[in-house]
């Protein structure tokens, strides 16, 4: 019988499937971090259980860590305690930890791929909703709650209903200044912040196939922002080339064996999806969000849709969002001054993102009214940026290159945007208060963020690229 890619991977991991019960799904790799794991470790202690397969678990500290003077003791007491707790728990249960100071430390969804831990055909989970990132390799990867973290610790399995499948095709060629981030913001704006709920999404089409691995990660990363548990892309030569030679990637005979299997990982031509959507790359402009959920996005030169154009029941919430942002119906955002630019997060903090920004800002200066933070996704990305001299370009431009972590994406550490301030951000969520109480977030691509940093206001990057 023909199968979708999700079904192929899912079926290969079902330990037991019984009518009336969710499937017992085997989990190949469990990624953990300091925020959503302590209560799960506690649960194990209460039940008197070990971690069943500690070698299939990898830990890092990312959500709560400072991004300057990272090797000094963490000043904030609760953050320090949480990070220390992770160290203690990993030691007690025999789990490998890439903590602060380790050359592999970084955002959990950046280090998995760069270390060759993330591989096609795997099932991967983490107590973090952006685990969907790893789907870029053709893996089933999704975020779980802490009770499920405990479940995977105890059994290396999860009870899961098989999800519905959706295919989103994007065909054609992207215009100049339009990137993977714009593709995903465009899709979310089209189908809403709830449009993918209940589905696993497979991204396909010529525009997706043309993307690098890092760009594919940006796409899959934000699947959760339309409610989808996960998103994935069939692995191809671009995937295999990216993986080969990485720290924990298979090598030698193991590589050949793995590669043979990976080449079977695609949706059969006549496989049935529960839903199929198709978009054209030519229709996509650089995107920006204007509201308080990622579905409230538009082409950067468009005007904010009027409240009256929204369905009746939704008008109250829509108006509340615009009030929070300080925006009016029908307004254009072009030329609007910004206060902060944040380039980072598991969505856009990889070396290609930093290169793209550096190439754009080379020889330019940030505007006086803007504070610019660049937070690399990992120690390896940070080191690579330095090796390539990107740090010098950022320094000359007045951008702060900080140390790796989740940082201002969610403001758990000190990197918070002050109340009322506008932050143009390459992260994934524009929720109220996400980057700090009463902070206002506008989600964009790294290129659009770089343009705002240089001009100090919201700018269509295509206009600057045309001048160059």
């Amino acid at each position, binding site marked *: 019988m023909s199968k979708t890619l999700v079904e192929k991977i899912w079926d290969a991991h079902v330990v037991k499937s019984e009518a*009336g019960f969710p499937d017992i799904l085997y989990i190949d790799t469990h990624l953990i971090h300091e925020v959503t794991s302590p209560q799960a470790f506690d649960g194990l202690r209460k039940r008197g259980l070990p971690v069943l397969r500690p070698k299939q678990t990898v830990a890092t500290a990312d959500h709560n860590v400072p991004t300057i003077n990272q090797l000094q003791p963490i000043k904030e007491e609760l953050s320090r305690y949480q990070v220390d707790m992770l160290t203690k728990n990993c030691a007690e249960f025999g789990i490998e930890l890439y903590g602060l100071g380790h050359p592999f430390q970084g955002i959990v969804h950046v280090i998995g791929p760069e270390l060759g831990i993330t591989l096609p055909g795997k099932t991967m989970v983490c107590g973090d*909703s952006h685990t969907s990132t790893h789907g870029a390799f053709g893996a089933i990867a999704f975020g779980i709650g802490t009770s499920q973290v405990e479940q995977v610790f105890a059994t290396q399995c999860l009870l899961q209903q098989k999800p519905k499948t959706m295919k989103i095709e994007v065909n054609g060629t992207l215009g100049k200044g339009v990137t993977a981030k714009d593709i995903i913001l465009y899709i979310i704006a089209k189908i809403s912040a*709830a449009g993918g709920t209940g589905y696993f999404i497979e991204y396909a089409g010529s525009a997706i196939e043309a993307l690098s691995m890092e760009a594919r990660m940006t796409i899959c990363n934000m699947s959760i922002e339309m409610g989808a548990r996960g998103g994935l892309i069939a692995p191809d030569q671009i995937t295999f080339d990216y993986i080969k030679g990485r720290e924990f990637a298979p090598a030698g005979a193991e590589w050949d064996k793995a590669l043979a299997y990976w080449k079977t990982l695609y949706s059969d031509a006549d496989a049935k999806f529960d839903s199929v959507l198709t978009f054209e790359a030519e229709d996509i402009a650089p995107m920006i969000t204007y509201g308080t959920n990622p579905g409230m996005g538009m082409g950067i030169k468009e005007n904010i849709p009027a409240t009256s154009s929204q369905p009746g029941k939704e008008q109250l919430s829509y108006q509340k969002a615009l009030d929070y942002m300080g925006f009016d119906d029908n307004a254009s955002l072009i030329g609007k001054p910004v206060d902060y630019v944040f380039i980072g997060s598991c969505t856009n903090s990889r070396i290609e993102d930093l290169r793209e920004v550096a190439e754009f800002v080379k020889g330019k200066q940030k505007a006086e009214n803007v504070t610019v933070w660049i937070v690399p996704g990992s120690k390896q990305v940070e080191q690579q940026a330095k090796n390539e001299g990107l740090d010098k370009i950022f320094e000359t431009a007045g951008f702060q290159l900080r140390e790796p972590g989740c940082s201002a994406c969610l403001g758990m550490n000190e990197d918070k945007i002050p109340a009322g301030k506008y932050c143009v951000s390459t992260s994934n969520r524009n929720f109220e208060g996400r980057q700090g109480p009463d902070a206002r977030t506008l989600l964009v691509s790294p290129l659009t963020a770089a343009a705002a940093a240089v001009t100090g206001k919201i700018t269509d990057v295509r206009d600057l690229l045309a001048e160059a």
Partner: protein
Amino acid sequence: MKKFERLTSAVVPLNIENIDTDQIIPARFLKATTREGFGENLFRDWRYNGDNTPKVDFVLNDPAYKGQILVAGKNFGCGSSREHAAWAIQDAGFDVVISSFFADIFKGNALNNGLLPIQVSEDFLAAIFKAVDQDNNAQLDVDLESQTVTIVATGEKTDFEINAYKKSCLINGHDDIDFILNQKQSIEAFEQAR
């Protein structure tokens, strides 16, 4: 896990859509390493001003609204996977959340903690908000066994869906770990066969 069978209670209405987990419990309050105490910061930035004084117009600060049932607009619990959202709601004294649509991860987290998420139609949700508008103490009767919600004053009633396995977990107070631990042989057999 906490058991749930039946509840008759007044409700706390929150007629807002797309309530994300950052509103339910902002990230800066996720630093605790135990499951308790998150209720204090439930809807923190909607409940309190920057100087920690309560915002008087927010429903959780209005003594007229009490009850163990939270009723909210569609796409409740979207955003992050933080189970702290379910813990905070439960810690603040709620046993049931009703909405016309739930985000997947939140729904799973709630069920794993004995907090019952009930999805009803847009029309029934509107009927609940209307009943609470008319009487802030309007009672709902939630019966898990028969999978029904009834607006006591008007007798309006609706069925709701729940996975049969999850239903039995709630009624018996069992969790997924209890279930899978009994499958250890199957797991080992699966690993060996790979």
